[in-house]
């Protein structure tokens, strides 16, 4: 039952967010509030709760709750960042729809529902990717139009591939009585379809062109949805599905596994090379995401239960660390008005907190020997590749350090003119106008954030020309006027220091009239006294200071996301334990036997929940006994075969929430 609030909030927030799109302020308000509510609802998802919808159960798990909490938290923080650096249009409603679909996919015990839901959850990403022409020029430039068309076509094809691959995988995992004796070919086709769907959505290297185009679309913060959150959810489901082929052997299956291994290796190396060669921050972030997606493909190619726990931990770290990286790129571009590396020389001197955030992101992504995330990556390399290629894990780490180090090295170079003229992260406080000698400098300094913000919002990625002295002088007048408005609170005490002229004495009036006059002026006097109080002045100054320190605030927010990522990477928030618990599909896939097919008179198809419904036939002794579970594959839980004595999916579905299997509860 604890899942219902989350699903309701996601559905309502998505619909309301789309309806509110024409009104910018309302859309932002609805988006942030709905995401905050969804985050709280995700936190309250209980690990072993279940909800029956018809004959299908939605059984929550520890990992599902943690994944959804992390994803909604990242999306919320990116949207808060977007309030300053540029609101990601349609990100909030699209992300809420995606998270709702992921919630159903992670909790449904019927594989057909799982894969239909995961396919549906991939669709909203297109809202962010091609949902707006605002990022492009309004003029019908042929090159821009061609790029827009290419993005639309590739996104639609990717969506079709994910949907078709998911449905084929669902058909395969439910194991109807195939005509072919071994049915390994069917599983090989389904395995390849699902693996290719994951690879294409991540943008793995042979399929990296659409992902590369996305980085040039100006989606900025919206990049996290199609490249991080959606493929990660797909990866979680694909990992659980892959347990169905653990025990299978066949030539076609070997070919499919080898294909995925090749794609993974190429992605690990060439993704990092792409990040090293590109100069735009968005492209560097995109290729960094692509490179790290190679580990998910390695987990799929491992065909080993021990890889699943590591892959799940990696996926949670991936969504938080890469969300932080996307936010980092957006904030750095906004702060200095450019996303080109040659314009950003010396950025670290002006934005040291962003530098710390980048280091934290690197630590969260790579870890060090002995840390949970490092061991997870090492496990995936060991299990996913033959021993001769294990050195590629170290090569991938070195290449990642190289492109992250390149970013830091550019930040340590002598400061460029653009970076030097930007406000940086230094805290600022509104200066009173009465301080005459310091006023011009203070006013100019106070005006910088607003100027920078306006320029960056209008043309966030285009390099701005450096103003000449005359232009700067002309701009200074505007800046001074703007700053006078912002610091009028500070100037208020100076004005109030001059006493107002006394009211004229009543000419021959009675004493009663004098008292009445004083009473009439009392509210104004009280109001004036309240305005003159130091507390009110401080509050107003604080408000002005809040506006003046946008750069500092956004940097701190990025640092907060990175801190969450590093905490999860080192096992915080129960991530290590949750990664071993898995999702409901694990329990549904692992003990799935070759079902006797009774023809079309069977009430509902061969799914574990359908067989255990109230009006369904009772489970046969073969399927209800845990013998098949204990002797067969143990699912993709990290504990592998040692947990094979746990209850099967059939028993879990029939017993309800109190007796859910350990793959779901994490016990």
């Amino acid at each position, binding site marked *: 039952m604890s899942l219902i609030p989350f699903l309701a909030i996601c559905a309502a927030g998505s619909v309301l967010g789309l309806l509110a799109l024409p009104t910018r302020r309302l859309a932002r308000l609805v988006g942030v509030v709905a995401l905050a509510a969804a985050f709280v609802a995700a936190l309250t998802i209980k690990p072993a709760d279940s909800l029956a*919808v*018809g*004959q*299908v159960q939605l059984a929550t798990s520890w990992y599902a709750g943690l994944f959804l909490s992390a994803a909604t938290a990242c999306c919320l923080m990116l949207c808060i960042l977007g309030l300053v650096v540029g609101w990601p249009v349609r990100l909030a409603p699209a992300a809420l729809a995606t998270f709702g*679909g992921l919630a*159903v996919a992670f909790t*449904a015990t*019927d594989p*057909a*529902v799982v894969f*239909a*839901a995961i*396919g*549906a*959850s*991939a*669709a*909203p990403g*297109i*809202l962010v990717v*091609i*949902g*707006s*022409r605002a990022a492009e020029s309004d003029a*019908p430039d*042929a090159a821009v*139009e*061609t790029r*827009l*068309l290419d993005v*639309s*076509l590739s*996104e*639609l*094809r990717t*969506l*079709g591939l994910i*949907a*078709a691959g998911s*449905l*084929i995988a*669902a*058909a395969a995992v*439910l194991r*109807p*009585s*195939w*005509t072919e004796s071994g049915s390994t070919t069917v599983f090989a086709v389904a395995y390849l379809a699902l693996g290719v769907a994951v690879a294409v959505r991540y943008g793995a290297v042979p399929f990296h062109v659409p992902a590369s185009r996305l980085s040039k679309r100006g989606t900025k913060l919206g990049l996290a949805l199609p490249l991080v959150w959606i493929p990660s959810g797909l990866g979680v489901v694909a990992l659980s599905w892959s347990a169905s082929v653990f025990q299978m052997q066949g030539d076609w299956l070997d070919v499919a596994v080898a294909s995925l291994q090749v794609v993974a290796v190429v992605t690990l190396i060439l993704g990092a090379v792409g990040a090293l060669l590109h100069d735009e921050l968005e492209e560097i972030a995109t290729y960094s995401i692509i490179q790290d997606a190679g580990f998910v493909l390695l987990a799929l190619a491992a065909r080993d239960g021990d890889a699943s726990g590591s892959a799940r931990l990696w996926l949670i770290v991936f969504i938080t660390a890469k969300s932080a990286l996307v936010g980092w790129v957006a904030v750095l571009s906004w702060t200095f008005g450019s996303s080109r590396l040659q314009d950003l020389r010396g950025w670290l001197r002006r934005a040291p907190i962003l530098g710390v955030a980048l280091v934290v992101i690197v630590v969260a992504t790579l870890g060090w020997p002995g840390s949970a995330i490092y061991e997870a990556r090492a496990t995936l390399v060991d299990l996913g590749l033959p021993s001769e290629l294990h050195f590629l894990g170290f090569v991938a780490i070195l290449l990642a350090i190289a492109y992250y180090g390149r970013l830091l090295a550019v930040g340590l170079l002598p400061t460029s003119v653009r970076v030097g003229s930007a406000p940086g992260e230094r805290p600022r406080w509104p200066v009173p106008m009465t301080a005459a000698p310091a006023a011009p400098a203070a006013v100019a300094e106070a005006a910088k954030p607003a100027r920078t913000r306006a320029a960056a919002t209008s043309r966030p990625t285009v390099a701005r020309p450096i103003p000449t002295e005359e232009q700067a002088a002309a701009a200074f007048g505007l800046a001074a006027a703007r700053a006078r408005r912002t610091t009028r609170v500070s100037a208020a005490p100076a004005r109030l220091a001059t006493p107002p002229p006394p009211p004229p004495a009543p000419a021959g009036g009675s004493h009663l009239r004098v008292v009445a006059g004083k009473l009439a002026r009392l509210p104004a006097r009280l109001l004036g006294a309240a305005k003159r109080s130091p507390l009110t002045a401080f509050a107003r100054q604080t408000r002005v200071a809040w506006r003046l320190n946008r750069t500092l605030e956004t940097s701190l927010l990025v640092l907060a996301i990175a801190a969450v990522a590093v905490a999860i990477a080192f096992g915080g928030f129960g991530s290590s334990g949750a990664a071993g618990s898995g999702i409901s599909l694990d329990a549904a896939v692992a003990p799935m036997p070759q079902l006797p*097919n*009774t*023809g*079309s008179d*069977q*009430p*509902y*198809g*061969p*799914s574990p*929940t*359908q067989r255990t419904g109230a009006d369904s036939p009772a489970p046969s002794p073969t399927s209800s006994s845990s013998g098949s579970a204990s002797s067969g594959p143990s699912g993709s839980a990290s504990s592998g075969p040692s947990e094979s004595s746990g209850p099967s999916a059939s028993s879990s579905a029939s017993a309800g929430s109190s007796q859910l299997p350990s793959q779901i509860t994490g016990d």
Partner: protein
Amino acid sequence: MIEPSVIAAAGVVAGSIVAVGTRDGRAVALGLLVAMVAAPLVASPLPDSLAAAAGILGAVLAAYLLWASARVNRSSGAGSGIGWVAETAAAAAAFAIGLNVSLVTPLPGPIVAQAAGMALIVLAVVPIMGRDVMRLGAGVILLVLGVSLLTAAWLGPMAPLTRLAIAALLVGVAGAASVAIAVQPTVLPAEATPPTDIPSSPAPEPSTELPAPATGSSRLPGFSRRVRP
């Protein structure tokens, strides 16, 4: 007596042929509506009222999204590249193959579901390979619909939540296609114009006027027919 699933399968294939064979965007939406409404009925026994209602509602919503984007943008696709006769022949061939191939024995669902699914997948191939957004959206919808029909044939009757999830998937795909149609370029550059060293005549400027009704060869060189007002 002809079973309802056979009639529904015929409706699915007929609607799909209309969707991939016509140029008018609204006709494409109408054909897809017929196909998506009839698809849940290709089952034996027929789904219960709640599941059928969910499927039909999802189909109407998905078709409306396409209809709205096609109406607002006065969008029209390029039409079938091979002609509707060839599309019909290909679909009929795939349908016949689906009737005579048994991948699962015994088949839990109706055999016509497998046949219709194969026909839809064959019909979806050409639009998915093309560069027309409207046709590509229709092709992706037909692909998903075809695979879901195959699933229904191989796995037997679906649970209501499964039907709801597939309806949501179709709505999501249709919504994505409608968004792509809505933002499609106003003037498309030339498709597959081979580069040549011989200087050719300059390409004509894109006109802001609505073009004359398109016939087979009345297309302006270098630009597609689609001009959005």
